[in-house]
């Protein structure tokens, strides 16, 4: 029990220094001019447009990731094919690549000089592409270990009791995967709303059209308007917080359902 107390203490201090304190500073900076000034900043038309765009695209990207990420994890765990370990290693590359390089690469492939004939640069599609790229690993890596641990006898039992593959997937596999899928999706969302490096080169940054929240924030910082930057950041933090809490609630619910 003593060891438990100590480790709790260490993690509390650590989290406070690394996470809580910087976030508190951001919140404090956003409120320096009072609540009215905060509201003015986050309700200005360009800020609202940027936040809306960021939220909607992030949501779409997360939905896409949830399906394709689960599918990819499934293939990596359940199927056997040549080069599987290579593909498995490939999944993490978007994490390792500096995001600005990712943006540059995407621009080269899907830009005006596209070798594959696809030019979507400087559109909202390009933003979605960049976000899909940098958030790919989250769902795959969350689902994969759970799928590996999943007791296949359950599926065999279901099949022997006459359940169709679809029913087995829906009633046996999916409920077991749900918590992992949700936590992966929530992490993807958090990463997507704050993403800057990969988006900046390829989005075109036109206010009201392709300017995402992180670029809007950067603009405020470059114009020495730190309060505006902090205010919009706080909205992003709140958005992520809501999604993380929502995912957590859903996760608990699906666990309970499972039991």
């Amino acid at each position, binding site marked *: 029990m003593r060891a438990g107390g100590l480790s709790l203490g260490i993690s509390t201090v650590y989290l406070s220094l690394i996470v809580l304190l910087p976030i*508190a500073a951001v919140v404090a900076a956003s409120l320096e001019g009072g609540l009215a000034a905060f509201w003015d900043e986050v309700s200005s038309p360009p800020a609202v447009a940027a936040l809306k765009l960021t939220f909607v695209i992030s949501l779409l990207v997360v939905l896409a990731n949830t399906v394709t990420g689960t599918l990819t994890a499934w293939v990596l765990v359940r199927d056997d094919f040549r080069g599987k370990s290579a593909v498995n290693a490939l999944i993490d590359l978007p994490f390792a690549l500096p995001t600005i390089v990712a943006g540059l690469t995407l621009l080269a492939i899907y830009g005006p000089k596209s070798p594959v004939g696809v030019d979507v640069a400087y559109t909202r599609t390009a933003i979605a592409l960049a976000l899909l790229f940098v958030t790919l690993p989250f769902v795959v890596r969350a689902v994969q270990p759970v799928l590996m641990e999943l007791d296949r006898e359950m599926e065999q039992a279901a099949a022997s009791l006459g359940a169709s593959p679809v029913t087995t997937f829906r009633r046996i596999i999916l409920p077991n995967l749900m918590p992992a899928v949700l936590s992966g999706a929530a992490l993807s969302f958090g990463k997507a709303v704050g993403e800057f490096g990969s988006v900046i080169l390829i989005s075109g940054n036109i206010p009201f059209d392709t300017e995402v929240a992180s670029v809007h924030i950067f603009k405020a910082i*470059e114009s020495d308007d730190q309060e505006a930057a902090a205010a919009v950041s706080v909205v992003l933090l709140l958005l992520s917080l809501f999604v993380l809490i929502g995912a957590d609630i859903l996760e608990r619910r699906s666990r309970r359902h499972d039991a």
Partner: protein
Amino acid sequence: MAKLLEGLMTLVRTSAGHAALLLGGLAVLTATVAGCGGDSASAGGNTLSLVAYSTPREAYEEIIPAFQDTPAGEGVDFDQSYAASGEQSRGVEAGLAADVVAFSLEPDISRLIDADMVASDWNKGPHKGMVTDSVVVFAVRPGNPENIQTWDDLLREGIEVITPNPFTSGGAQWNIMAAYGAQLELGKSEEEAVDYLKDLFVNHVPVQDKSAREALQTFVAGKGDVMLAYENEAIFAKQAGQPIEYVVPDQTILIENPVAVTSTSKNKVAAQAFVDFLYTPEAQRIFGENGYRPVVEDVLGEFDYPTPPNLFTIDDLGGWPDVRSRFFDREESIFLDIENELGVPTE
């Protein structure tokens, strides 16, 4: 801030019950931060910290060894840092060690004057603190297929113009002021000049990159017909083998890049000696070879940089403080109105 931290701590206290440890951690952090503050002013010893914007890097890499060959520069080591001008200025303001600062525009020096880190008489010298000049030019595709020659050409149907956003790139403010001032030179009223900017940004600028280097990236990647650029950047891109040509318009702005010794420097003698060296023919020649226009007349004469017939300066437009508040204030300004105009069709 204090209240907020207190609230957060209460939250942690009740949820985890380890407030004492948290407070201890905060104390450690505070001590660490305070400790960092002590040696942040200057590198000391016989080392100079040069904090500069990105583009003159190649020039400084030649100038520094040349300085070290002089009696004043013998045995002086350099720490060099290059990044976007605004970022560097804010970095120094926040405590980044610097003995000599070189920025792309004067307001980045003004920030340090306000913070008491650069003496207010920094520009008393014969060249007013400016170490290099340049002009805003039109960078175009090889052979200039769209035959871009004048500011009016930029507004022709279907012409795409690449320029960074002036709120993210202080340097891009030169572009805007070049376009605006050119209209005045052409005999337009201030109102008409603002309309020109509006037309340009609403109908002809498809991408607003965050910095000049990224705008170049966009242009080289194939987007746009013409890019508003500094002459030195265009020359740099050409020297680097990029498929680019440039046209110097008849009406354009003289870009002036400042350099200063910080008042927080612990090595002021060497720092001043280095800044003085930057104005010697030898150093000015190196700048000239790297695409910058030397500020020293005699050296400028050695190069064949064309002089546009209607060359104007930022002071002709009211000077930076005035221009900044009229055009680039984030609360209320001409450029903010132009940006909001972009939002009209979608709302």
